[in-house]
């Protein structure tokens, strides 16, 4: 492959291997309407890489680790922005940034964990550009907004020239960095059911530092308590499996149970066994199992107080 020398190909981060097949001079398509995006995707779906705020993709691109000859930049498609109240749920446009989520009164009121999660993502500069749709489609198991969407049983609205469809967030991923999205499809929005008055929610991220850290383990949960019993609970966890996951065994153990110290201890152990973390550069499997159990304990203690 021809080596194209330019200031941006030199001085790449050390240790980074140049992809041998990537284009050093990709094209960028900049549609402004959803109809145009659909048109481009139905023509070029398999070949184009969709880029939104760029907080994940630009990092890879600068490091020459992104294999794409064509980019489809959707940043100017305003139809993908905005948060709307749909009664039982909030519809959040795919291009809604973390800053917009943090500032939204609707989100603050009806999905407080999503505000908490957004605050932990990168730092201000990332929150100003990063989008919730990007977090979903990037499909990282460490995406910090994703455990919230899992715990809240959110739905993903997907569109293409063929029409729109809705997929439960908890069925959106099919494996590590893989999802049900077809090549000609685009995530339009995510629909997050509102937290009920009787429900309590929780978000906790464990990273190396407060800002700019990628999670070692990250949990979002919500639960309903009546007469000292957990009538319902949902727990979403990130960075502990190939995708963001729910913890069904732990949820099963806790549902309908009296919140005692023994139960909490049992739940701590069950979730530590249930998840399937790996050891990588950010943390070890042992640490992730132990700390995830402890984070759940923190939520259960909050519930019992």
């Amino acid at each position, binding site marked *: 492959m021809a080596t194209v020398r330019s200031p941006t190909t030199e001085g790449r*981060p050390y240790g980074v291997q140049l992809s041998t097949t990537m284009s050093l*001079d990709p094209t960028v398509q900049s549609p402004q309407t959803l109809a145009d995006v659909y048109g481009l995707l139905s023509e070029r779906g398999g070949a184009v890489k969709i880029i939104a705020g760029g907080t994940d993709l630009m990092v890879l691109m600068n490091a020459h680790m992104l294999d794409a000859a064509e980019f489809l930049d959707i940043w100017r498609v305003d139809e993908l922005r905005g948060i709307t109240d749909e009664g039982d749920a909030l519809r959040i446009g795919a291009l809604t940034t973390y800053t917009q989520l943090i500032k939204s009164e609707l989100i603050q009121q009806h999905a407080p964990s999503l505000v908490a999660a957004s605050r932990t993502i990168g730092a201000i500069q*990332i929150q100003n550009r990063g989008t919730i749709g990007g977090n979903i489609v990037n499909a990282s198991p460490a995406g910090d907004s994703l455990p919230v969407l899992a715990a809240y049983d959110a739905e993903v609205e997907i569109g293409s020239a063929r029409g729109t469809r809705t997929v439960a967030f908890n069925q959106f991923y099919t494996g590590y960095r893989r999802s049900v999205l077809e090549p000609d499809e685009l995530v339009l929005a995510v629909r997050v059911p509102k937290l009920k008055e009787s429900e309590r929610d929780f978000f906790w991220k464990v990273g190396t530092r407060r800002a700019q850290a990628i999670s070692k383990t990250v949990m979002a949960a919500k639960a309903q308590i009546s007469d000292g019993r957990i009538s319902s609970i949902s727990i979403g966890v990130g960075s502990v499996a190939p995708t963001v996951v729910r913890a069904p065994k732990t949820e099963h153990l806790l549902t309908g149970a009296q919140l005692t110290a023994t139960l909490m201890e049992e739940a701590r152990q069950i979730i530590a066994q249930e998840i399937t973390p790996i050891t990588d550069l950010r943390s070890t499997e042992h640490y992730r199992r132990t700390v995830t159990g402890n984070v759940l304990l923190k939520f259960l203690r909050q519930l019992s107080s």
Partner: protein
Amino acid sequence: MQDDDKMNEKGSGLSRRTFLKVSGISLSVPLVMGHRVIKVSGAEVKVFGPGKVPIQLTINGKNLSAQVEPRVTLLDALRNELDLTGAKRVCDRATCGSCTVIIDGKAVYACAVLAIEAQGKSITTVEGLMQGENLHPVQQAFIDNDAQQCGFCTPGFVVACKAFLDKNPNPTPEQVKKGLGGNLCRCGTYMGVRAAVAQAAQKGGRRNG
């Protein structure tokens, strides 16, 4: 065309010619506004590249032109094409904050924004903070509080502080810590930076714009 040849040589990606052949998307009149236009189901869509395209950026109130490949980041366009080297290229992976600029009132990493994407927006770099011969209150506060050591992170910090104070004129210490979490200083001058923000907030960090 030279660009087509270059693309074909690599044997990867699609040349402009084959792209059109394969896709059936028709090319309309090339425009001189930094992009071509293709028709998708009757509507026109801008396509930038391959090869260099002319761009126009509004930086510190001035309209500046350059020729860049579509993949070029705003940071590299500023530094390599427009001689605005205040924003520094350190990590080039949206982490360290040295390249912080303000786009439409929001602090962003210039290394994570495409230059073509920044067209039509109001961009402020550290070069645009001074008013004539007077330093911006944030810049003065950095000097008064020894908020730099080697100084390499300083321009990014100054811009991030300005954007932060514009949004939070009277911040609490905790807000300052969180608000500036997107900038790193390897010399560890954070205490000085916090003191500078406190001073600039008192003097009205937003006064000069």
